[in-house]
């Protein structure tokens, strides 16, 4: 099935944490496809389950967490059915991951050359010497100046941006089909972030891989992603191509998120904030998870959880407003009416 158009297909993924006899549903029925060669962004605030989704793909969920249900199909095989041994071969080879804070992901007592070379030794059976030569090549690829000298350096000798470049070099060493980047630029300054985003974009085009980008920064999403999934309280609430998402957002949460974002490129009088807080995992609303904070919430929203509805433009939204069962104002337009509805 190598001519499949999708690099990855997640179906009904459920990951829970079991704490003191309670089940906390961190990821609650997420379905998502990653088209080949494309970048899919997963956006959401803390606790929305975006990072747990990515860790589930890598099968890196540790006790008390557990993947309870679902399938993650890659090249026609279900990653969730693989043994730990098989998974170890897939990680790094077919799927790689880069994390937010490179200093905690790099080993401080080995040189960066040794750490990049290790990938080649483990996954491709190269010798130490060959690995070292490859490491220099990789450093060059990710734009680190004088790579021959740099391979001998330790992580603490590098700046934050350089470390993230090293992480990318390690992740891309075996030309994976899929790269999962979890907040890769969040810890970096904007000018360095710009460098890293550009590097990732160029490498993606060169290597033709698919990328899952997890971030809370809508600016980064607009700039790098082809498709976007917005997550809230463990569920995807909206899925759209990046243009539709920003030009015509549908879900009240997405709209609220965009209107509460302070912009550096234009003036705003007041931010249209979303009232309240993200629900605590043990106090999940019975109906729509966003209902208690939603300015449009009506009877049905409080009582029943909406499905992810497919809209005319092939995008998806989890909101009653777009269904036949909507019992509120039939004329409502979420994006235009958000401000007035909110101030009521």
């Amino acid at each position: 099935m190598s001519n499949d158009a999708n690099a990855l297909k997640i179906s009904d993924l459920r990951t829970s944490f079991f704490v003191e006899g309670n089940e906390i549903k961190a990821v609650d029925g997420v379905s998502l496809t990653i088209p080949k060669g494309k970048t899919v962004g997963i956006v959401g605030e803390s606790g929305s389950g975006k990072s747990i989704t990515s860790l589930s793909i890598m099968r890196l969920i540790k006790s008390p967490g557990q993947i309870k249900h679902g399938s993650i199909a890659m090249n026609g095989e279900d990653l969730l059915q693989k043994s730990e041994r098989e998974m170890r071969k897939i990680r790094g080879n077919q799927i790689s991951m880069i994390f937010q804070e490179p200093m905690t992901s790099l080993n401080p007592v080995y040189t960066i050359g040794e750490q990049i070379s290790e990938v080649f030794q483990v996954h491709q059976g190269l010798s130490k010497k060959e690995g070292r030569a490859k490491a220099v090549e990789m450093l060059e690829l990710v734009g680190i100046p004088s790579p021959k000298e740099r391979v001998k350096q330790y992580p603490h000798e590098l700046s934050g941006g350089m470390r993230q470049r090293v992480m990318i070099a390690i992740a891309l060493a075996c030309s994976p089909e899929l790269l999962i980047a979890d907040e890769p630029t969040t810890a970096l300054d904007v000018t360095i972030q710009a460098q890293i985003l550009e590097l990732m974009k160029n490498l993606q085009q060169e290597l033709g891989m698919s990328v899952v980008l997890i971030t809370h920064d809508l600016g980064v999403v607009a700039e790098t992603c082809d498709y976007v999934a917005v997550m809230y309280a463990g569920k995807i609430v909206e899925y759209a191509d990046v243009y539709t998402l920003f030009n015509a957002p549908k879900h009240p949460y997405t709209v609220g998120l965009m209107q509460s974002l302070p912009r550096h490129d234009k003036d705003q009088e007041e931010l249209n904030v979303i009232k309240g807080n993200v629900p605590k995992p043990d106090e999940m609303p019975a109906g729509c998870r966003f209902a208690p904070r939603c300015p449009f919430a009506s009877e049905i929203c409080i009582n029943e959880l909406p499905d992810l509805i497919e809209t005319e433009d092939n995008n998806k939204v989890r909101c009653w407003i777009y269904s036949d069962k909507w019992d509120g104002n039939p004329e409502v337009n979420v994006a235009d009416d958000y401000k007035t509805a909110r101030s009521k």
Partner: protein
Amino acid sequence: MTTKLLEVNNLKQYFPIKGGVFGRTVNQVKAVDDITFHVNEGETLSIVGESGCGKSTTGRAVLRLDDPTSGEINFDGENLLQLNKRQMREKRKDLQIIFQDPYASINPRQTVRQVLEEAMAIQHVLPKSERLDKILELLDIVGLGPHQLDRFPHEFSGGQRQRVGIARALAVDPKFIICDESVSALDVSIQAQILNLLKQLQREYHLTYLFIAHDLGVVRHISDRVAVMYLGNIVEIGEKQEIFDNPKHPYTKSLLSAIPVPDPDRKQERIVLKGDVPSPIDPPSGCRFHTRCPFATEKCKNEVPKLRKTETMTGTHQAACHYIEDIESGRKQPNY
């Protein structure tokens, strides 16, 4: 009429690096190196810049949390650097600070009531009998309920904890508040709530803010004027409209162009800077930005540019670059 509430003149903050057998000072980190600015009463001045540019150090120096190496800090007509410890502690009634992580700056073993009461007791704000009313009023002002009075910091979410931090700063009726990355750790929806709260408090209580942040979206929203710092120097300062819509310094321009815009239809031209920020231990000679500047010349290596205003700049807008006019007219082209 605008009066200058805070005036900082030629502020320097060097931190010694000790080394050798005798712990002698072998070198210095020049975190803030000769900066001058003022904040008018009732306005918000933001200091922006990347990590290590000295923006937080500046805030701490104003409060004398670290004693500056040299310079002058005039607050309300009084030079803070000439006060002794006791006088300074009294003065802090007027100058408060809200930190980035309220969890790290609030005693985890005190309830909200204790936190706020302690602040008032130290500054003798009110007689003991009237403090509870004031505490309840403060909670209401920052959007917390009376039922949260006896809760501990860990029982609050990040946004609520920041509200407690704000309430504590307001407890002593300050004139001036330094917000050091006060909204950086918060999610977008919560960040917006806190920003709106800060703005509303400023209007109601005529507060003056020194707002330290790295997020330029936040800065545009909250500021009246903005100062851009790079490696311990102010490279550009002025009204926010000028800084954002008419930036003159090549660093400000590249900083603004580096921010991703949440609008996929607008692919802006980006000036990607080469390399990293140099070390403040041994900063570059001349203009400190010359190692990364696409316009740099021999002159930039040797001569320190001063803040100045040209004909195309309005208000209090000033930038420290030798080539403002030449870059504008196109006479100087960048070489990438």
